[in-house]
């Protein structure tokens, strides 16, 4: 693809939640706000800057019930909005920023005793603090025309 570079499908994009998420307040179908938490680079240039808004959707949200029933909160990644451009993400939203360690099998779906997110279970509800690092994968190859690549600011 001459004159065009692309981020490949499956590339992990580091994200963070904008607000606290709680199974006490969120309902299935609610949109949740996130942002890209680190610059995403291509050909030594930033193509998706840190702070770029992203969205997710609540798939399941249940407060804990009587008798020790666990609370549940499942959220899927949806899109990154880069100016007028919407970049699709695979639904799986994973714990951690996806950089350095593989956490691809720790989906952002929290029950009573679930991996790294067990620490966020308070009482019968699941609460994920604002700024919690996570990651999602690009749904498809995402091209950037060379002319569109902004120059990376030098420190």
């Amino acid at each position, binding site marked *: 693809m001459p004159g065009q570079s692309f981020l490949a499908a499956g590339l992990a994009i580091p994200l963070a939640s904008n607000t606290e998420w709680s199974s006490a307040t969120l309902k299935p179908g609610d949109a949740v706000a996130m942002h890209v938490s680190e610059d995403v*680079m291509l050909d030594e240039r930033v193509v998706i800057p840190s702070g770029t808004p992203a969205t997710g959707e609540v798939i399941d949200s249940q407060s804990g019930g009587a*008798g020790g029933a666990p609370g549940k909160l499942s959220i899927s990644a949806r899109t990154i909005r880069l100016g007028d451009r919407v970049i699709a993400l695979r639904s799986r939203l994973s714990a951690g920023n996806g950089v350095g360690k593989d956490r691809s099998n720790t989906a952002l779906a929290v029950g009573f005793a*679930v991996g790294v997110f067990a620490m966020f279970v308070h009482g019968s509800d699941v609460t994920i603090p604002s700024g919690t690092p996570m990651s999602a994968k690009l749904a498809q190859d995402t091209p950037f025309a060379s002319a569109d690549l902004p120059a990376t600011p030098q420190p």
Partner: protein
Amino acid sequence: MKRTLAALAVAFACSVATSPTMAQDAAAAQTQPAPATAQPAPATTPTTTSAATPAPAATGTAPEGLVGPAPADKAQVVFFRPSKFAGGAIGFKVREGEQELGKLRSGNYFIAQVTPGKHTYTVHSEAKDDLNMEVDAGETYYVQGTISMGFMVGHPHLAPSDKATFDGMSSKLDKSN
């Protein structure tokens, strides 16, 4: 009469043993390390070629442990239930709508291959519990079944889990028939 007494005994066993047991699960889960399988390259790594691509999987397509890789066009969901004394005599069926996917007894697991998208899995005894999930093709998901105390019988629950939790107890799990 004998059945009623047996059910009461099970309910009592759940009431005295389930909460501390689940608390132990939570504590154990907090200390589990992150899974250590292959991972796409970090997004922030500068690339010198014309494309930033995920790193190739290190393990190829060979099955790992009890669970092999998901097919490229399907997601797979691993349903498992820890081996526990409390509620151990109770088995429950996992359904999606009217379709029975499998049965979970204490210390069992089974694998369902499903179409990508949203799914609702249900278990019930005298109470019902639903788990809503959205799954991607080529990915593996883990769901843990548990029993909590009920009035007459234990209440089954489904909760999202992860590979590390499953791997930590896989040596004590048998595949459901």
